[in-house]
């Protein structure tokens, strides 16, 4: 695909997804204006139907929702660039959460070093969780997809067990941590939203992702492995090692997502009844974002917006499933991007031909 196609195709997919959501909403007898106004309000805190001052708390919450799925998007994207499908983000997020919980409550440290140790614990746990499918793929030729999915369930129960072992565990959660990513400053500039320092973690991860993949020789060999595993092997690259490393880095990104949720959004460890879907959101984000860092960043914001708007929609009697349907349609259309571009060219071609009749200057793109 050409460069501009890589930008136009996802944009069209997003527009088409929103269009279908709108049409469905009209059929269900609700005015789409409420949907759009809720979406806009949930992102920037401005209600176009009831003009008033902008409430930045909405913006803060929107970022809180977007941050972890940008990280899981990076996680899926990183594996994908190496030709691997890491569907185990869910489990990696959860063990990352649990590890940072344990680190926060048990490590005899304090202040920023403690915080960094907690983040690293989360990343490390995610990496180990992703190492298992990676090494099994390489040594035993067991498909990463299968192992990773199963580890999602193991991850859920294992992380719950870890949280239950914490000394201050009671009523499905632990006490507040002595350290957290919570930021009175960020909260104060966003009208007391839950926005926290995890944003820095996300930005750093985006930069690391870009530099690692595009600028380093390690990234070069990962990309070669992703495009043509046999070709990379023939060129003398350590393909098996690349597969394991790529899974671990991918897992570390997902683990970080878990860590910032626990350390930033909540500030205490939680026992969960079910996974919260961050890992699967990451697949959509990576796909729509074209597996590059800027794309993943923007796609993460998009899906974050659709996620954060759901409760507000519900409040206005708009089924929150509309947001899910829009997300699903966008994913569907992104998967069909070649076909979409084909249609675009046919339409553009038809317009061009009309021009030709008039101008007679021939030649077409």
């Amino acid at each position, binding site marked *: 695909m050409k460069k501009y196609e890589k930008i136009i195709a996802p944009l069209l997919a997003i527009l088409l997804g929103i269009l279908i959501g709108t049409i469905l909403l009209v059929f269900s007898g609700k005015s789409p204006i409420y949907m759009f106004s809720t979406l806009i309000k949930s992102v920037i805190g401005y209600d176009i139907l009831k003009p008033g001052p902008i409430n930045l708390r909405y913006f803060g919450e929107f970022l809180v929702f977007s941050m972890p799925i940008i990280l899981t998007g990076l996680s899926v994207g990183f594996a994908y660039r190496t030709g691997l499908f890491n569907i185990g983000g869910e489990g990696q997020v959860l063990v990352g959460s649990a590890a940072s919980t344990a680190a926060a409550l048990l490590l005899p440290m304090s202040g920023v070093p403690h915080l960094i140790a907690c983040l690293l614990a989360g990343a490390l746990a995610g990496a180990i969780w992703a190492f298992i499918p990676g090494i099994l793929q390489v040594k035993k030729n067991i498909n990463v997809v299968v192992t990773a999915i199963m580890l999602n369930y193991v991850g859920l129960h294992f992380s719950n067990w870890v949280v239950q072992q914490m000394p201050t565990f009671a009523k499905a959660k632990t006490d507040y941590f002595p350290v957290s990513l919570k930021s009175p400053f960020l909260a104060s500039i966003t009208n007391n939203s839950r926005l926290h320092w995890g944003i820095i973690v996300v930005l750093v991860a985006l930069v690391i992702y870009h530099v690692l993949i595009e600028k380093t*020789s390690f990234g*070069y060999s990962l*990309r*070669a492995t992703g*495009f*043509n595993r046999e*070709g990379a092997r*023939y060129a*003398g690259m*350590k393909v098996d090692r690349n597969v394991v490393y790529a899974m671990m880095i991918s897992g570390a990104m997902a683990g970080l997502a878990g860590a910032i949720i626990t350390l930033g959004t909540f500030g205490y460890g939680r026992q969960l009844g079910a996974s919260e879907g961050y890992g699967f959101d990451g697949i959509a984000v990576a796909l729509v974002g074209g597996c590059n860092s800027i794309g993943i960043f923007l796609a993460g914001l998009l899906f974050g917006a659709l996620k954060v708007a759901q409760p507000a929609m519900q409040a206005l009697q708009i089924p929150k499933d509309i947001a899910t349907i829009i997300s699903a349609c966008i994913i569907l259309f992104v998967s069909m991007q070649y076909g979409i571009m084909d249609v675009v060219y046919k339409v553009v071609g038809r317009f061009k031909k009309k021009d030709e009749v008039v101008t007679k200057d021939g030649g077409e793109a």
Partner: protein
Amino acid sequence: MNYAIEMLNITKDFPGIRANDNVTLQVKDRSIHALLGENGAGKSTLMSILFGLYQPTEGCIKIRGKEVKITDPNVANELGIGMVHQHFKLVECFTVTENIVLGMEPHKNGVLDLKSAAKKIKELSEMYGLNVDPDSLISEISVGMQQRVEILKMLYRNADILIFDEPTAVLTPQEITELISIMKNLVNEGKTILLITHKLKEIKAVADECTVLRRGKYIGTINVAEATEKQMAEMMVGREVNFSVAKEEAKPGDVVLSISHLNVKNNKGLLGVKDFSLDVRAGEIVGLAGIDGNGQTELVHALTGLCKIESGTVTLNGNDITNYSIKKRIEEGLGHIPEDRHKHGLVLDFTLEENFAIHAYNVEPFAKNGFLNKAEITKNAERLIEQFDVRSGQGAKTITRSMSGGNQQKAIIAREIDRSPELLLVVQPTRGLDVGAIEYIHKRIVEERDKNKAVLLVSLELDEILNLSDRVAVIFNGELTGVVDRKNTDENELGLMMAGSKKEVN
């Protein structure tokens, strides 16, 4: 005169390039017409126009005398035009019948009716002497058979103008002979065939007429029976062509590669290479001849490190490399021009410059402290492009997939030769390439020899072996049947050895 296809004064412009310039192609009904031209001569563009994938900028197309507008491939299908692609479009885990009906599945009351389809396919297969079993799985039949399935696909859709795009590129010599007789059968039964190729021998063997294109321009149409291969080659390339490579007597030096009592298992777990021993010296080209599937692939994979060696040793410049990793072998001085350039030779989705850096991507000058030095990578690519005349749309930044096969191969050769390896392992270097590219590549291989490098050439084309080699080794059933001096041998002797008759190693 009855023409099945007439493409008159076709011109096709792409931004910046005129791909076809006033080209005329007239194919007589019930004949085999060859379309000859080098890679990039405009053959594919012309065929894409005929197939409705592109619209011509100027010119008109007539099918059986009637002017037509072919706006998309469906129109072409309705007009009875069918294409047998070079790379087959088959579903491996489906049967022959399922593949053939794909897209127009017959049904009875809404239930898939494969039985009647299988019957029709059987009839067609018998009528044209194709000998295809409608119930076999694609994954279980040979490449030659798969091609026949592609042909049947067209016949099943009632095509009577068949376009064959480089049909012999993937076939063994025996399969080529069979394909030629199938094509003749098809014409006898009333079909018209348009054959796209650059293999002169095959044109000579099968075609009635031949239209030649060069750099987008129409050069002429000739009666094949009256023309020689040399004449056709000259029309195609635009200058005199040397089929034989000018080279001086070899001056062999020390042994560079020494293979001793090598045993290698094939992918079925049986011994593909058995007790194989061979030496290659500096300054000589040793050709390894043999019929496809006699252990060449296993031997090459064992030498390059792509597969494990069961027993025996391989030494390179006196170092035992038997258990070395691929990377270490490359560093030790092994250059490899692989058989499958798409699978092993290149990362097709990389740019040309990235492919040039593939062996040294992590060392200076291409990388420093783990970071790529893109300026150096580009500089290196531009130097190689210039030096080896690799042609591509956007220079060093071209995605390799979009380049022609000949230029992809040139890129691999440029990369491998530039590393100046002590041993150059060359496998099927000219498969699917045109005369001009073959001439160039042969010249480069001989140059390496003259620079006192050792060259092991593995090829299925006996002509290539005879042209280039100083000594010829023959492999049969995984075993060495003999090594002979090029000067003292001929096609007959090698043919016998390739069929397994042993000769004392001299």
